[in-house]
C-alpha cells in the first residue's frame, strides 16, 4: 500500500478533535461524580477505594474494549457475556484436570477467540446481521455451558493463578496493570494503525471502504475475533478473582459492557468513538455502584439510579455532539 492511499484513509483532523472534545466531556462527567461522592462519603477518596473502583471497572473494560471495535464497525456482539461464561468454565476445567494455569489461560483465550471468529464468519461469509448472529451465538453458548456444567460450579484454583485477579504488584492490583496495558494497546491500535483507521472507515461507510480497497471481510473477522479473545481474557480474570465459575455469570456481564461502550460515546451507527471513552464509560458505571454501596443506598433504588445515569450520559453525549457539529 502506498503512502498516498494511507494518507487518504486517515479521517480528517477535525474528526479526531471532535472525539477529543467528547472525551473531555466524559472525563468531566466522571470527575463530577467523583466530586459529589467525595463530599457525601468520607471513605470515597481513600486510596483503597480508588484501587477498588479501578479493579472493579477493569473486568467490564476488558469485555467492553473488544466490543468497542465491533461497535465502531456498526456491529454489535451480544454474545460476549455468554462467551465469558463458557470460556471460564472450560478454562477452569482445564486447570482442574491438568493442574496447569498456563494451559488453562491459553484454553480460555482460545475458546473466546474461536467463538469470536465464528461470529465473524457468520457476519462476513454468511452475511447475517451481527445483532442476529451474535444473539444466536448467545443461545448456542448458553446451551453448551448449561449442558456442560449441569447445574454444578467449579471452584478452588491454585494460589499462583489467583494472583492474576486478586494479587498486587508495587501496591497496585494486577488487573489494574492489565487495564492500563490494554487501554494503551487498544488506543494505539484504533488511532495509530492503518488497520484501526480502516475499522473506523468501515463503520463510517462500508461501501466507500470497500471501494477504496479495504479488505472489509478480513477486518471484520479480525474485529470479532479480538472481541471474543477479550471475552476470553475477561473469563481468566473472572476465574482467578472469584476462584470459581458457574454457568450463569454471562447475563450480568453483557449489558454493563454494552452500556460502557455507549456511555463512552461510541456510536451504534459506527465510525465514531474511542477505546479510552469506553474506559471512562466502565469507570462511570462502577463509580455509581460503588458510591451507592458506600452511601448505603437501598437495594430498591440502585437499579433505578443506574438506569437514569445511563440514559443521562447518552443524552448529554448526543447533545454535546450536536453542538460540536
Amino acid at each position, binding site marked *: 500500500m502506498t503512502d498516498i492511499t494511507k494518507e487518504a484513509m486517515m479521517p480528517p483532523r477535525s474528526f479526531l478533535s471532535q472525539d477529543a472534545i467528547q472525551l473531555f466531556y466524559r472525563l468531566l462527567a466522571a470527575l463530577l461524580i467523583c466530586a459529589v461522592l467525595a463530599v457525601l*462519603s*468520607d*471513605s*470515597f477518596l*481513600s486510596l*483503597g*477505594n480508588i484501587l*477498588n473502583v479501578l479493579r*472493579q471497572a477493569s*473486568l467490564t473494560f476488558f469485555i467492553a474494549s473488544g466490543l468497542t471495535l465491533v461497535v465502531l464497525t456498526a456491529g454489535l456482539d451480544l454474545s460476549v457475556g455468554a462467551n465469558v461464561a463458557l470460556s471460564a468454565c472450560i478454562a477452569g476445567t482445564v486447570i482442574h484436570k491438568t493442574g496447569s494455569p498456563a494451559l488453562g489461560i491459553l484454553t480460555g483465550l482460545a475458546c473466546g477467540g474461536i467463538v469470536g471468529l465464528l461470529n465473524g464468519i457468520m457476519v462476513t461469509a454468511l452475511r447475517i446481521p451481527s445483532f442476529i448472529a451474535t444473539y444466536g451465538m448467545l*443461545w448456542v453458548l*448458553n*446451551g453448551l455451558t*448449561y*449442558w456442560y*456444567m*449441569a*447445574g*454444578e*460450579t467449579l*471452584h*478452588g484454583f491454585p494460589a499462583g493463578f489467583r494472583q492474576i485477579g*486478586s494479587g498486587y504488584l508495587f501496591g497496585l492490583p494486577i488487573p489494574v496493570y492489565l487495564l492500563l496495558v490494554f487501554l494503551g494497546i487498544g488506543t494505539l491500535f484504533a488511532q495509530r494503525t492503518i488497520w484501526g483507521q480502516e475499522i473506523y472507515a468501515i463503520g463510517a461507510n462500508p461501501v466507500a471502504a470497500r471501494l477504496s480497497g479495504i479488505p472489509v471481510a478480513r477486518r471484520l473477522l479480525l474485529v470479532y475475533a479480538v472481541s471474543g479473545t477479550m471475552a476470553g481474557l475477561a473469563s481468566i480474570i*473472572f476465574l482467578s*478473582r*472469584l*476462584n*470459581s465459575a*458457574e*454457568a*450463569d*455469570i454471562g*447475563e*450480568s*456481564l453483557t449489558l454493563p459492557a454494552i452500556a460502557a461502550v455507549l456511555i463512552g460515546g461510541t456510536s451504534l451507527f459506527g465510525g465514531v468513538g474511542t477505546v479510552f471513552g469506553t474506559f471512562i464509560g466502565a469507570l462511570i458505571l462502577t463509580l455509581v*455502584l*460503588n458510591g451507592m*454501596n*458506600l452511601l*448505603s443506598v*437501598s*437495594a*430498591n433504588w*440502585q*437499579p433505578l439510579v443506574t438506569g437514569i445515569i445511563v440514559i443521562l450520559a447518552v443524552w448529554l453525549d448526543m447533545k454535546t455532539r450536536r453542538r460540536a457539529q
Partner: protein
Amino acid sequence: MKLTLGYFTCSFALPLLMAAAFTTGARADGETIAVFTKNQTNPFFQTVRVGADNMAKSLNAKTLQYIPTKPDSIPEQLSQIEDVVVKKPSAIVFTPVDYKAMVPGVEKINEAKIPVVNITDRSAGGKFLSFVGADDYSLGLETARFLLKTLGGKGNIVIIEGVKGSLTNVDRVRGFNDALKEAPGAKLLASQPGNYQRLQALQVMENLMQSNSQIDGVLAANDAMAVGAIEALDGANRKAQVIGINGTKEAIDAIKSGKLLASGDYNGFAQGCLGTMMAVRSLRGQPVISEIVLKPTVITKDNYQPFDLPLEQRTCPTFEDAGKLGAK
C-alpha cells in the same frame, strides 16, 4: 427462492427435532412424571431433579424434565405446559418460575385433568394434590440466629440481598432482620443487593469494607454471594463470620475448610424425592400428605457429613420420614 429456503429449513430442523425427540422420549412402561424446574443454572434445581429421578427409579416410574432454556422464563414455561398437556404424562411435579404469573398455566394443567404436585415455590393459585417445600423465612431466621449466637449476640453485620422483589429474597431477608431484632447488641451496617451473583456480592463487599472498618458478620441470601463475600474479605486480609443459604457443594467445601460459618439447607433433594413420591402414590391410589414444609437445617462444621455425599449417592426419605421432616 422461498422453496429452497423452506427445504433448507426442513432439512436442518427435522433431524434436529427428531434427535431431540429421541433423547427425551418417554418409555412405554411405568408412569411418566413430568418434572418442571425453574432453570438449568442454579445448582439447587439440579439437586431437585436428581432427587426426582432417584425416587422415580426406585418406584419404577420415569421422569421427563422440563427446564426453560432461558432461566426463569415465564413465556417459555407456559409453552412447555402447553406441550405437556398435549403429551399427557401420568402426573406433573411443578415448580412455577413465578408464583403468580404461572397460575394460568396451572389452570391449564387442571383443565387437562393431569394430577399435579407443587414443589419449592408455592403457587398463588390452581389445584394441587400436594405441596412440598421449604420455608425461606425460617431459613433466613435460623441461619442468622446461628451467626448471632456465634458472635455472642453482638457485632457489626451486613446483609447481602438476592434479587429484590423475588419471593425467596423477600422472605430470607425478612428472616435475617427478625433474627437481628432478637439481638439488640448487634448493629446492621448495610443491606445491599448482590442479585444472587458472586461477582456483584464480591464488589459490594469490597465497597462496604471501605466505609466500615469493622465488619463482624455477613448474612448472604445465597451461597454464591457468601463465597463472593469471603473472596473479598480474603483479598483485604480481613476476617468476618459469613453464612449462606442453599447448602451447595461449594458451600459444604467452604464449611469444611473453615471459611464459611454455615449454610441453610433448602433441601432440594428431598423436595424432588417427596414431590415425585406424592405424585406416584396418588396415581397408585395410596394416601398422600397434602402439605410438607421441610424444616430448615443449618449446616455447620459439626453436621456437614451427610451433605458431603455426591448427589447420586444420597438416599431419598421414605414416606414415614416425610411426616417427621415437616408434614402439616
